């Protein structure tokens, strides 16, 4: 059985860092033999969170650091994202109305909706100097390392 493993990424608050994030997630998942379907979901959820922080998290145009910690165990992958931006709890964001007509559908909020649906757990913690969001994806059956 593979040992628990933590990978820490320190990223610039720029969409250009997405390529680095994607590459690191891919490498981490492949090393742990995570099923590509699960990797896809982690990759997507993480992009949505990261993009929200970059686009809406800061009142200034200074460089900021966004820290992503991936922790893999036999049972799950836990992803913790910390930023020093404006306080924002995505769990309190209004839900997307899936029954809305096409003309009423807005794209805002879709990212958070995807994160909640793709992950098994999403937890938010407000910190003195920013936000901490924790995503958990459980590994089941074939994704579980033996």
């Amino acid at each position, binding site marked *: 059985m593979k040992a628990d493993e933590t990978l820490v990424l320190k990223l610039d608050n720029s*969409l*250009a860092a*997405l*390529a680095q994030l*994607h590459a690191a997630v891919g490498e981490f998942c492949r090393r742990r033999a995570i099923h590509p*379907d699960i990797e*896809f979901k982690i*990759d*997507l959820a993480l*992009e*949505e969170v990261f*993009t929200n922080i970059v686009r809406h998290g800061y009142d200034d145009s200074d460089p900021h650091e966004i820290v992503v910690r991936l922790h893999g165990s036999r049972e799950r992958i836990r992803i913790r994202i910390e930023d020093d931006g404006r306080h924002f709890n995505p769990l309190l964001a209004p839900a*997307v109305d*899936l*029954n809305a007509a*096409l*003309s009423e*559908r807005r*794209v805002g909020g*879709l*990212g958070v*909706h*995807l994160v909640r*649906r*793709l992950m098994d757990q999403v937890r938010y913690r407000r910190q003195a100097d920013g936000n901490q969001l924790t995503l958990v994806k459980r590994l089941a059956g074939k994704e579980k390392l033996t």
Partner: protein
Amino acid sequence: MKIREDKIDEFALLEVSGRVDSENAETLRKYLMELGGREQRILIDCTGMDYISSTGLGALLMLLKLIQKKGGTLKLFGLSPRIAEVFGISGFDKFFPIFPDLDAARRADA
């Protein structure tokens, strides 16, 4: 992400492949808006699309609204199961006519 445009019958055929993420979705959005401005019937080939996030979905939604306003047609085909799941979770599967392949998309009315 790669975008390639072709013409088949009366349709503009757009192939969008690779990764559509929030870094390049703006490029896609601009292309789609320009395409929607000049074309009436559009097929989008998603066969080579590996990935799409909410920003790319938003660009497709904008195109659909534009085309419907013009009374035109927009159909998608070739979505991988992963991409199809993202459409489903987003509730977009009920807005977009989605077909397994090019032939099915061309033949279908609408």
